[in-house]
């Protein structure tokens, strides 16, 4: 909680400086500091500071985004090739992909990553499954989704359901 508040403080300062660019005007700097502390105080009072306050601000998430960007480039090539070829041989398919994330943030990250990768779109999100529409049926390989899910969970520090089940085996899904 305190860590999240500190992270929010740092982000707000960086954001204010980035958007305003006033580094040498003391009056404006003081006004900026006041507004930052007002925002921080309001969010503490509203009790909205939790793990979701500043998502994706860690080294793991940065690595994940780099990996995701490479995947996006690969998938883009496949879709461009399919779309621009004169025959345009596509094979649309829908599949249900198991979702092993336990937190909302992990689920959003996984579903967003699926949609970001061209050729696959998350259509509907259920309790433990995502309905995915794919442009080419080769793109629906279960292993690819499993790897993406694992990496997405790791990036936001998500305790995956598999691990949770191992911890409390008799209870099952929490």
């Amino acid at each position, binding site marked *: 909680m305190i860590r999240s508040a500190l992270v929010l403080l740092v982000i707000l300062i960086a954001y204010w400086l*980035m958007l305003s660019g006033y580094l040498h005007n003391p009056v404006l700097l003081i006004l900026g500091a006041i507004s930052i502390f007002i925002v921080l105080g309001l969010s503490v009072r509203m009790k909205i500071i939790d793990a979701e306050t500043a998502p994706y601000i860690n080294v793991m998430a940065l690595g994940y985004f780099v990996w995701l*960007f490479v995947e996006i480039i690969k998938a883009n090539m496949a879709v461009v090739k399919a779309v621009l070829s*004169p025959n345009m*041989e596509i094979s*649309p398919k829908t599949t249900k992909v198991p979702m092993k994330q336990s937190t909302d943030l992990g689920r959003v990250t996984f579903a967003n*990553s699926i949609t970001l990768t*061209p050729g696959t779109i998350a259509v509907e999100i259920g309790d433990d499954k995502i309905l995915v*529409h794919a442009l080419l049926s080769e793109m629906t390989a279960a292993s690819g989704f499993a790897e993406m899910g694992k990496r997405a969970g790791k990036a936001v520090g998500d305790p995956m359901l598999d691990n949770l089940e191992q911890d409390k085996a008799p209870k099952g899904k929490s």
Partner: protein
Amino acid sequence: MNAELLQWIQFSVSAIFLVGGVFFVIAGAVGVLRLPDFYTRMHAAGMTDTLGAEMILLGLIVQAGLSQTSLKLTLIAFLLFLTSPTATHAVVGAAHHAKLKPKLGKYRAPVPGEVPPVKIAPKPKLKAKPKARTKKKAK
């Protein structure tokens, strides 16, 4: 002399990114026109706002150099990275809720000049509504 060379490199790198981005945006537009149904078209539209927009932004970042503008552009790129899949998912999810059936299975582009086989839909059965209306009118 050296600075001029550096500027030239900066310009050409940004030009490569911009041209690449424009290529992906145009390919996305062509895809939206060519693909057969709503769901597959969303794939092409998604391509426009991932690599297309990101590459154009990257080109602009290189063009801006190390400055406040490039930081702002990075922020925009990050924002697009998070919001564009959300928007795509919202549109596709709305279509799914409206019970729009996706075309599945293999598809090939129709050959120009060749008449595609037309499926004749069975005639819809007429409902007995008009009768009820006349009765009501008679009353």
